[in-house]
């Protein structure tokens, strides 16, 4: 008898929904966080008034109000654009931004109906390469938006953005290779469980301590990949109006941000999973907790207890990293375009190559001496 495992299907769908829910909520919440943080840095108050009924809750009603405002704006397609591409361009970042959320590792696994349910919606043997594959597709949205708008500013913005994104992708892909051979796997969950060990007796065994140069390169490249300041040359207001966004308005305009913030969130999850031990609490691994709590609660229940703890720890680390993103955005000025390309090709790429070779030799000495 052949039976499709219902448990597996339902759990996969639930995990996908969790990813979509978080990925889609990042944009509105981050828009508020960024405006508040910007205001604080500039000694203003920022949006602090919009609440729900009489409760002001620090202005957290602002994103909801913004969303409603955007929905009621005029859906305007200029007559001179290439219509099909113009309409499709904002959808591309949304598709890729939401699709990458399936690869988020929320935890190790739980047991339901005597079946092991992996807490990663899609667990491929190609591991995090899926995130890279999907995230590089986002460049199509930007390029199409720039070209189809039939506006010189848009075209320049789109060209700049696409050249920037592909340039930094090379350094990005290369900077991560050391981690693959240090951990010996592409699977994020395996990487994370390896990082729960303790290094030299006092440090958590994080990827950060094994490949610090990789971390710095990767951090710089995710800023460039998500088109954020100091690399937001694509929409540098001073010279290009709003770059590839110039001809967009209303909901289509905000779809770009939905995709972009979702992508940024997943990139932060990826960074945290590779360099900061993902859902594992430093020094207190889930293995240790499992051994401690299993006698009292039983293994299955303990895994369920660990699930929300793991997600909480992961989100906490990601939120700290995203706060760093916001902090950088309002404190570091924008690069000039030639400086940007020079940083990508002339500095980051050779550094990544040298880092790769040096780390390989050191790892080989440690592993096979």
């Amino acid at each position, binding site marked *: *008898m*052949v*039976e*499709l*495992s219902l448990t*597996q*299907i339902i759990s996969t769908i639930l995990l*996908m929904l969790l990813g*979509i829910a978080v990925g889609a909520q990042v944009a509105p919440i981050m828009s508020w966080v960024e405006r508040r943080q910007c205001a604080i840095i500039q000694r203003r108050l920022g949006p602090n008034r919009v609440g729900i009924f009489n409760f002001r809750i620090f202005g957290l009603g602002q994103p909801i109000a913004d969303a409603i405002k*955007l929905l009621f*704006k*005029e*859906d*305007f397609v*200029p007559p001179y654009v290439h219509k099909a591409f113009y309409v499709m361009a*904002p*959808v*591309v970042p*949304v*598709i890729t931004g*939401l*699709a990458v959320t*399936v690869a988020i590792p929320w935890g190790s696994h739980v047991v339901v109906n005597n079946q092991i349910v992996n807490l990663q*919606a*899609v667990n491929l043997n190609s591991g995090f*390469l*899926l995130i890279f594959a999907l995230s590089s597709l986002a460049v199509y949205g930007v390029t199409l938006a720039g070209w189809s708008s039939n*506006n*010189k500013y848009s075209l320049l913005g789109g*060209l700049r953005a*696409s*050249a920037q994104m*592909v*340039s930094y*992708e*090379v350094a990005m*892909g*290369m900077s991560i*290779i050391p981690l*693959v*051979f240090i951990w*010996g*796997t*592409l699977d994020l969950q395996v990487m994370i469980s390896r990082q729960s060990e303790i290094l030299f007796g006092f440090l958590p065994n994080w990827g950060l301590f094994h490949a610090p140069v990789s971390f710095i390169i990767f951090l710089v490249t995710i800023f460039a990949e998500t088109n954020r300041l100091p690399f937001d040359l694509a929409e540098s207001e001073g010279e290009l*109006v709003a770059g590839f966004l110039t*001809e967009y308005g209303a*909901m289509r305009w905000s*779809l770009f941000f939905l995709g972009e913030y979702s992508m940024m969130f997943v990139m932060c999850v990826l960074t945290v999973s590779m360099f900061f031990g993902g859902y594992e609490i430093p020094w207190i691994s889930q293995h240790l907790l499992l051994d401690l709590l299993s006698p009292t609660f039983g293994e299955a229940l303990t895994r369920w207890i660990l699930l929300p703890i793991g997600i909480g720890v992961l989100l906490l680390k990601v939120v700290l990293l995203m706060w760093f993103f916001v902090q950088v955005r309002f404190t570091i000025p924008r690069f000039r*375009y*030639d400086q940007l*390309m*020079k940083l990508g*090709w*002339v500095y980051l*790429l050779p550094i990544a*190559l040298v880092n790769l*070779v040096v780390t390989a*030799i050191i790892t*080989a000495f440690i*592993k096979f001496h």
Partner: protein
Amino acid sequence: MEHSVHYIGMNPYLPILLILIFGLALGLGVSGVSLFLGPKKPNQHKLEVYECGLPITSTAERRFSIKFYLTAILFILFDIETIFMYLWSVAFDYLGWFGIVEIGIFVATLAIGYIYVLKRGALRWD
């Protein structure tokens, strides 16, 4: 009659396909909503290209710098090299020192190409 239960694991790529379709529907749906909710008030100035109000002299479909093509070509070259290195890095433990020497030769060859590109000025933007 035998009753052996085979649990068919889902094709791991199926959820990706589903979420791609979901993203498409969400994107088109959300941008479609304001088609019904929003007002429609076109006027002559709104229908013009937004280029800071100056009279438009030409469309945007014009030649742009060769630099962008060069960057794209170099990207393809170097990105494919990166993929080859991923293959080696997965088999790192298996290949051992042989792999290190091989990747050393590979990186050296790549570096020669990179230096050539650098010396020819393909990466200069100023």
